């Protein structure tokens, strides 16, 4: 297409239409090249720019104006220019800034992952694994908030919140009335309804799906199970709500449906439904239909890379879509996606194929 422009990110060139952000271009390449995002949500207008985890270095502005940008820029809110050259994981400055932002985000986070329902599918956990330090340098009391009840369906844990504003945008854009917002300023800013009030409208449950951390969780799923013990199954039903697509993901254990969520794509965002629109689901589907007989089961979900359900079966896009293998391009940086367990561990001999062993494999087989 004539309208497409070329942008080079970490030495990999892609063609994207004019008006694309650097982040979307990087997602087109995929894998570790795509900067992590905590606040940006491609399905929500106006989101992004706040968490600063997606900072990238623009080493060449464009073909016309090759000057580099003086500061790191938020890739989610910066448009690409023709001939732009961007450094994401190849820039030490960017890696350092991301480390800094990760540290800042975790500064007042309670780290109560062992009792948090989001654990296992938490963006902040992923970010912490990728860019965090093992210990904290913060020695003071963490900030805490008074618990607030925001209704029968949604549990608010303000201590875990990282102020991404996603839930505010969701309520603004999906529902006619927004009952919650940000109160106060600075490090005491909080999500609240101000006058104690229940969040109550048909689509408010979606704030659970967009929340990158465990600040907003599903009360019907609370403390019921761990995410990685449940098995995701795609299902649908004819929902009477015209705005609801009825296409969901059931999180089951045995025959029991523990949780219903919207379907998510590989970036952890709510995926498009079959009608081409974003697959938001209504509260009825999410909170009330907890029986398998309510649903038409389509089959097991292809596990997405954000979930611990994947358990190491990481399938990155880099190197698979006919693009050059990342290691050749990214000098000296070993991306985690192409890590082979056998290069770091001799536990299981790679020469043994499990299907050649009769019966269940035993540790004796690997001696």
């Amino acid at each position: 297409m004539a309208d497409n422009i070329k942008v080079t990110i970490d030495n990999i060139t892609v063609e994207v239409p004019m008006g694309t952000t650097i982040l979307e271009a990087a997602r087109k390449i995929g894998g570790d090249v795509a900067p992590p995002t905590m606040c940006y949500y491609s399905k929500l207008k106006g989101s992004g720019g706040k968490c600063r985890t997606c900072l990238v270095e623009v080493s060449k502005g464009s073909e016309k104006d090759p000057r580099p940008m003086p500061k790191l820029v938020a890739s989610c809110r910066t448009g690409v220019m023709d001939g732009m050259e961007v450094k994401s994981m190849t820039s030490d400055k960017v890696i350092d800034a991301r480390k800094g932002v990760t540290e800042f985000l975790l500064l007042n986070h309670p780290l109560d992952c062992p009792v948090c329902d989001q654990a296992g599918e938490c963006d902040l956990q992923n970010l912490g694994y990728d860019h965090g330090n093992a210990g904290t340098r913060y020695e003071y009391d963490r900030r805490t908030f008074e618990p607030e009840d925001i209704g029968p369906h949604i549990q608010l844990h303000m201590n875990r919140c990282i102020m991404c504003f996603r839930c505010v945008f969701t309520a603004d854009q999906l529902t006619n009335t927004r009952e919650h917002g940000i109160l106060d300023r600075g490090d005491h800013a909080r999500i609240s309804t101000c006058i104690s009030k229940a969040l109550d409208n048909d689509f408010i449950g979606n704030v659970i799906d967009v929340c990158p951390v465990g600040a907003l969780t599903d009360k019907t799923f609370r403390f019921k199970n761990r995410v990685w013990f449940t098995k995701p199954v795609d299902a649908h039903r004819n929902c009477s709500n015209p705005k609801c697509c009825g296409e969901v993901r059931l999180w089951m254990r045995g025959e029991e449906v523990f949780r219903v969520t919207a379907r998510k794509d590989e970036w952890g965002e709510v995926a498009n439904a079959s009608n081409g629109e974003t697959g938001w689901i209504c509260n009825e589907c999410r909170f009330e239909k907890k029986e398998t007989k309510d649903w038409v089961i389509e089959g097991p979900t292809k596990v997405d890379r954000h979930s611990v359900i994947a358990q190491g079966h990481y399938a990155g896009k880099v190197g698979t879509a006919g693009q050059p293998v990342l290691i050749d391009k990214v000098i000296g940086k070993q991306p985690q996606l192409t890590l082979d367990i056998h290069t770091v561990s001799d536990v299981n001999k790679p020469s043994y194929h499990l299907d050649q062993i009769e019966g269940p494999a035993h540790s004796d087989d690997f001696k």
Partner: protein
Amino acid sequence: MKLLLENEHIEGIRYYEAYRKHGGYRSVEKALKMTPEEIVEEVKKSGLRGRGGAGFPTGMKWSFLAKPEGVPRHLVCNADESEPGTFKDRYLMEFLPHLLIEGLIVSSFALGSNATYIYIRGEYAWIPDILEQAIAEAKNNGWLGKNIQNSGFDCEIYVQRGGGAYICGEETALIESLEGKRGNPRIKPPFPAIAGLWMRPTVVNNVETLAAVVPIINMGGEEYGKLGVGRSTGTKLMSACGNLNKPGVYEIPFDLSVEEFIFSDEYCGGIPNGKRLKACIPGGSSVPILPANLLLKDAKGNTRQMNYESLSEGGFATGSMLGSGGFIVLDEDQCVVRHTMSLARFYNHESCGQCSPCREGTGWMYKLLKSLEYGKGRMEDIDLLWDIQRRIEGNTICPLGDAAAWPVAAAIRHFRDEFEWHVLHPEEAQNRNFGLAHYADPLEVIQN
């Protein structure tokens, strides 16, 4: 030479009659006979730079204003002067309100703004009344409203009080607040010149910048441009405070040396009680602090002058900035650690909480500085502070992150020994309040 404060001593200059009698509103008469483009050209020629802190050329800012057909444009006067140490705009608005109104009318005409707003800091509780009275007087005499002086140009000026948030001095946060929303800075681009107030093209200028338009029109841009040094043209209001014999607002020429400004009787009149100069923040709390030896002369040995270039000579390693003109002087008894802690507390309190480095980092810096000041710090805390400020600076949405990081960086850069003293002498740091002048408030004793 005084341009802005020329008539400040005249009795009743706050009111229309006296102001008009002493040459007020001449620039409006002159401007209405010119075309808007000619006025912008005059301001460009004058080399006027934004007086709010960043020093961006005003004429250039005006020429960036988008002019789509059928879309109203707005001029917003940023009177949200909240930078600690800066109070020049307050002086102007309080004693010469008509000068600002006059500048606003000329600028509104130049930019085609029919509805012009003054966004004033909430703590300046009494000044909106003064401004509104001045606006009413101007309106009664035909300088505002419909068809000003039969020129066919309509203009209204509205005064809007802020809620007392420092962040609303940032132009996009100011616009958000003016729209009635939460005062969070917007992510740029788009810049206000393209999509500002109600997504219309908007210019946001400081009070002093707009007031300076009056002498520019009166004397001509070229004449104005001849005043000053190099790219610093005209005159500047400085608000001097701290350990000075005569703190206050002074209008200075740009070729004045820093030494003369502090020690001459015409200006600040030296440091009280015969004490020595220790350090100075030349341009409001956000700019780096400079020790006395780097303040009076730069690293190359040249005399430092009170202008944009000379004060920033040497970059942040050995220089500072003119900033908004809040000149804070510290004498030999002042404690830099305590001073930095107090600034860090301010930035922690005023961070809007939108982006993570500033929201979390400012609080962390304040806590670290507090423990250092109270004798509970360790040597590695100083390096940690340096690391935190490095990771805040440049990584935030708006300049508040930078403004919070620079004072801490400069304090460590120039006064590391004082931080180390606090670590090495925890008992004394807690009890004797090293470096504190006798009139400073006594330290509260913190438990454990």
